[in-house]
């Protein structure tokens, strides 16, 4: 808000200053239309801003002046000397008030009625009333608390300075090279070092002048959402975070439209009407959160809503209807790929076109706008729970961290943001093969298309495929491919300039730059490389490429799994059907008990797998509650990665254990948890409460209650009193007492003497083995 007020003050002062001459001229010539217009514009602007900032006094003044001037403009009134001086008095008063605001003080109470009255037709020209005394005092204070001095500069000028500094950096690099080549004396080197340091400092400073807080972008959002939701009859709460993240001025302008569009979409399509929300068990008020954060040299802007989410299937169906993809292809899409469809031109999920969005022009434009500045848009959504859009944009346009590589003797640069990993083609984890003339690299079991840079460029290279280095690239909005280069050199921060149209026409390059040795280097556009190299980015992405095709998995039953990360960081998957729900417990609920880790969940205690020792008491632990329909166990994990489906083969593990096998999930190998093994190992004690065998124990027998009961419970029974009405699977009674129920067969008689006398079916009560056998025999019969 302070920023906005500062802007307002600066704007007012600027206008007042330029008005200075106009006012005098107008006074001399009240019928001068052009002067009248510029004064009218001033009071109009002031009025508009005052409403926003809640300066009622200023607003009333400017409003009155605007009314009077509007009459003059409309020809309803003649500008006479009285009106001119009244307006001038108002403008003077506005100027004084602006000074007070600039000093950060509240506007003093005061009465402007006299001034306003002076504007009325036929008023006396005696309005040079003394300004409120309070204002005069405040003005005196202004000088003392001078705010940081600022001037307004045109962005164009800043750009010129910026490009001048970039050139200076390059010139310095060249000078450095020349100095290295020729032997110079120490004094020259020293002077050069100093110059070098100053230039670096200057570059930092000038880069900062181009930075702007992203708040400028966010500040309009609450208002926009408010208007929009009112129009749509929805209730939306906006939560804006991270406004202090700084971003290149130009970048902010470039993402303004995409961001606005995404927010509008979220309010229009994402968040439901209050009634629908209540029906879905949500709060009436939808929550929209917009947050920005810096991550490395990228800015991430998240736009999350808790609305109805994106229906991937419907998107796919629409895409088929629109003829964008084949029906068969649509069936193979993973959820993420379905979401990606929304960026296709001419596709909208809105059932009907609204005035706000849903014309099917939009998301494709959003994506292309963001990609133009080297950014990415990511979508994530859960049907019924909401969706999240993430904009990733680079910090600045001009300086790009890049990797230099070479083919033969020529160097090229690849933007680092697109590089996933670098592997040697002859490494153990990599195999290269040719499939129908196309190169395929298998890197740790993941198949990616492989192209040789030398082939794309048509350059001679003496190296064979195996001698090269593979750079795994993920172009903006595309899937990965591997680029084989002869040699990888260095990471460099490059000042990138656009290349000439004749060079850009190749589609391969994103720009040119100068290396430290002064020779020009071409910077690749990874998406262009893929295109020219014949890698089908889009279809590759959809069809999951060769992995799916090879396993002909379209007909195979797909197994839905939950992909998660274990506490020690392994990527694992568990079949969705066996997960009952996910629980959050505190570390103190996990303890050693009877030979294994157990976790307390409310009333129940479950065996806990997935960790070897109790976590610290204050740490939150997340766990799956696995159920086989009867027993339950907990499986601790770090985080859920995704829901996925296994469509390929599952490679079984050599030895039985927690991991039953390995499968490719979302193109990466994941270990599949063997739930059967987990239950086989941990089961038995953690019975779920339903379907548990019931054992009746005489409630009035202390020995039975204190000594026997734990053993019986340990064997998996739920213990009730003899007088309970529940049908029991087992009854335990002391020999010689009356039978509490009529179920002879399921009764165990216990006697207190070691030797049996008469009653043949009784068991000595400290005959643990016999007792356990009887218990388990009865338990077996109970099932």
């Amino acid at each position, binding site marked *: 808000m302070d920023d906005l007020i500062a802007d307002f003050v600066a704007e007012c002062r600027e206008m007042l200053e330029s008005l200075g001459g106009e006012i005098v001229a107008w006074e001399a010539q009240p019928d001068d239309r052009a002067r009248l217009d510029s004064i009218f514009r001033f009071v109009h602007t002031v009025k508009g801003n005052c409403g926003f900032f809640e300066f009622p006094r200023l607003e009333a003044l400017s409003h009155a002046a605007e009314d009077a001037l509007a009459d003059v403009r409309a020809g309803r009134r003649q500008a006479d000397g009285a009106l001119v001086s009244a307006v001038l008095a108002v403008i003077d008063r506005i100027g004084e008030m602006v000074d007070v605001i600039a000093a950060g003080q509240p506007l003093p109470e005061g009465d402007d009625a006299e001034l306003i009255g002076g504007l009325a037709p036929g008023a006396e020209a005696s309005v040079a009333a003394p300004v409120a005394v309070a204002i005069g005092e405040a003005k005196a204070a202004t000088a003392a608390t001078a705010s940081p001095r600022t001037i307004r500069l045109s962005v164009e000028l800043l750009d010129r300075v910026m490009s001048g500094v970039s*050139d200076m950096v*390059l*010139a310095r*690099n*060249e000078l450095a090279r020349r100095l290295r080549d020729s032997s110079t004396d120490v004094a020259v080197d020293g002077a050069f070092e100093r110059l070098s340091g100053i230039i670096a400092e200057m570059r930092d400073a000038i880069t900062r002048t181009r930075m702007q807080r992203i708040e400028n972008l966010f500040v309009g959002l609450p208002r926009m959402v408010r208007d929009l939701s009112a129009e749509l009859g929805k209730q939306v709460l906006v939560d804006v975070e991270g406004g202090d993240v700084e971003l290149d001025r130009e970048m902010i302008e470039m993402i303004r439209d995409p961001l606005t569009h995404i927010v509008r979409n979220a309010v229009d399509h994402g968040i439901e009407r209050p009634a629908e929300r209540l029906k879905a068990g949500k709060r009436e008020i939808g929550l929209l959160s917009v947050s920005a954060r810096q991550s490395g040299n990228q800015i991430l802007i998240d736009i999350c809503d808790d609305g109805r989410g994106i229906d991937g299937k419907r998107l796919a169906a629409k895409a088929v209807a629109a003829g964008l993809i084949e029906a068969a292809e649509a069936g193979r899409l993973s959820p993420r790929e379905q979401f990606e469809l929304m960026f296709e031109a001419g596709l909208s999920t809105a059932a009907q076109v609204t005035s706000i969005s849903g014309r099917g022009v939009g998301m494709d434009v959003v994506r292309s706008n963001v990609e133009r500045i080297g950014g990415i848009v990511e979508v994530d959504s859960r049907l019924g729970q909401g969706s999240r859009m993430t904009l990733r944009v680079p910090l600045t346009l001009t300086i790009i961290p890049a990797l230099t590589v070479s083919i033969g003797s*020529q160097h090229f640069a690849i933007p680092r943001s697109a590089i996933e990993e670098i592997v040697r083609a002859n490494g153990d984890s990599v195999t290269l093969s040719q499939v129908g003339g196309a190169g395929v690299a298998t890197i740790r079991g993941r198949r990616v298309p492989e192209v040789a840079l030398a082939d*794309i*460029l*048509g*350059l001679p290279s003496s190296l064979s495929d195996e001698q090269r280095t593979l750079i795994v690239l993920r172009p903006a909005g595309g899937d990965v491919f591997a680029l084989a280069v002869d040699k990888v050199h260095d990471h460099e921060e490059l000042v990138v*300039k*656009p*290349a*000439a*149209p*004749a*060079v850009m*026409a*190749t589609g*391969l*390059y994103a720009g*040119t*730059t*100068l290396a430290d040795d*002064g*020779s*020009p*280097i*071409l910077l690749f556009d990874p998406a262009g490389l893929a295109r*020219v190299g014949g890698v089908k980015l889009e279809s590759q992405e959809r069809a999951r490429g060769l992995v799916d095709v090879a396993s002909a998995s379209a007909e195979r039953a797909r197994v839905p799994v939950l992909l998660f990360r274990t506490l020690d960081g392994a990527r694992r998957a568990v079949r969705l059907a066996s997960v009952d729900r996910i629980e959050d417990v505190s570390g103190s609920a996990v303890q050693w008990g009877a030979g294994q880790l157990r976790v307390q969940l409310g009333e129940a205690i479950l065996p806990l797998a997935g960790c070897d020792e109790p976590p610290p008491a204050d740490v939150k632990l997340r766990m799956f509650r696995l159920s086989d329909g009867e027993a339950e166990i907990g499986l601790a994990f770090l985080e859920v990665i995704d829901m996925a489906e296994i469509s390929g083969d599952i490679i079984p593990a050599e030895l039985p254990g927690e991991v039953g096998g390995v499968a490719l999930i979302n193109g990466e190998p994941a270990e599949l948890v063997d739930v059967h093994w987990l239950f086989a190992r941990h089961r038995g004690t953690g019975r779920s409460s339903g379907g548990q065998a019931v054992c009746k124990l005489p409630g009035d027998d202390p020995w039975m209650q204190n000594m026997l009961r734990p053993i019986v419970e340990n064997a998996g029974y739920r213990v009730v009193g003899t007088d309970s009405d529940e049908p029991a699977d087992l009854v335990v009674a002391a020999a010689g007492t009356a039978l509490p129920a009529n179920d002879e067969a399921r009764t165990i008689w216990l006697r207190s003497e070691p030797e049996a006398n008469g009653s043949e079916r009784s068991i000595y009560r400290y005959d643990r083995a016999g007792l356990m056998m009887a218990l388990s025999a009865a338990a077996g019969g109970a099932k």
Partner: protein
Amino acid sequence: MNALLLLVTVAGQRVALPASAVESVVELDTLIPVPRAASHVAGLSALRSRVLTVIDCMRALELGATDVSDGIHEAAVVELDGHHYALLVDSVEDVVEARSDPAPLRAAMGRGWEAVSLGLVETDDGPLLLVDVAALIGGVEARAA
């Protein structure tokens, strides 16, 4: 009209470039080729920390190719739409004053020359063909398209 013209030799012919378009005349030594670019783009070169896109005039005119494999080449540096280009020529001779406005030439020229011609200008050195720098930079492909 007394505009200045830069007299250069391209493919053995003397032609004129508008001197106002030419920033400087340089000698290029190393050229970094641009793979997959149009054939008349001979490569990139650096001049005072600026990247120059080097245009082979012979190729642009479809009159063969300049041998750029070694040696030093003379080139005229021009700016077009914010990009700097170096036009490779056989040699740069002189700066002369134009004695007339360019007049259309009605004689049939070679196809390449035809495309870049701005007309004939009279100079003290006799009539010279005035070359359109932008058309030269656009190259054969652009004209074909």
